[in-house]
């Protein structure tokens, strides 16, 4: 590596960093939020594009920046559309699934969503619950996390209470 490459790499790294911070900042918080399965993949892809720009800066600088901006733009469009149209929303986003409810595992849903009992119990323990008796429901969310709901003292929670 010559001194010239070294300096150019610093310039490109610095330049693309600033451009990317600006693009992300302009596109809003939603770009990097991980509300459904796809968002996390896009976030990693954005990081991978940035890394590629810096490593292969001689060939890929402009192509990389275009790819980065396009990805942000496409995420913007898809979230913009899904806020406004329920058809687009249902195409882009799956629905949450109830995998444990009223002291029973929903084996059918578990098979369909390919979730094992071990994973459900792990999610419950991670939230610090000792006993399944405290749990009203476990829900597989659209971003692939398992939400654990505690039983409410005031009210017996119905199936409808978990979806809005």
């Amino acid at each position, binding site marked *: 590596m010559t001194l010239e490459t070294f300096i150019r790499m610093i310039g490109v790294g610095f330049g693309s960093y600033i451009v990317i911070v600006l693009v992300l900042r302009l596109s809003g918080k939603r770009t990097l939020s991980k509300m459904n399965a796809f968002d996390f993949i896009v*976030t990693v892809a954005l990081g991978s594009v940035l890394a590629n720009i810096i490593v292969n800066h001689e060939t890929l600088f402009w192509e990389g920046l275009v790819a980065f901006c396009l990805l942000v733009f496409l995420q913007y469009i898809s979230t913009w559309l899904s806020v406004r149209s329920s058809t687009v929303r249902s195409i882009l986003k799956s629905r949450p699934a109830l995998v444990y409810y009223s002291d029973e595992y929903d084996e059918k849903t578990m*098979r369909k969503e390919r979730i094992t009992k071990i994973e459900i119990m792990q999610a419950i323990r991670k939230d610090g619950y000792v006993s399944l008796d405290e749990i009203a429901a476990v829900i597989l969310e659209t971003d692939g996390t398992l939400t654990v709901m505690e039983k409410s003292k005031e009210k017996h929670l119905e199936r409808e209470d978990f979806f809005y």
Partner: protein
Amino acid sequence: MDVSTFVRITVVSFLCYVAILFVLRLSGKRTLVKMSAFDFIVTVSLGTVFGNILINQDEILWEGLYIFCLLLIFQYLSSFLSSRYTLFSRLLKAHPTLLFYDGTYYEHKMVKERIPKSEVLQAIREQGIGRTEEVAAVILETDGKLSVLPKKTNEMKNLNTLTDLEENQ
């Protein structure tokens, strides 16, 4: 970069985005569940493959899309099999390990899993608990995190979230 390159990148990226979105949507929520270290690695790989497709699209567009789909199919198969057959779930998934239970450290498990006592204590502190007497159990989960179960009352019954551990203790 001339206009035709720009147009090509735009069109191909758009199609890739749509294709990948639909493939992921088809494969279900489970694909991106991060319940084990391996799931997490696969998710990051998927993102990296996607990023590489976008940036080297004239060279690796089809190879990239093919690898992306292959990774999804492997993930689908392994979760499909392990949610149906315990044999596969034993082969493919690590099992959680009990490290501390009602005042006793399981020293041989800790040595085997390479978790020092200080890390168990750290996990307990991170839950805001000051005394090990207040802890019912500490479990090393399959994604490498430590779960700390506090003693709610002074009784140790009803620890039925630990039922998946007993068979391999």
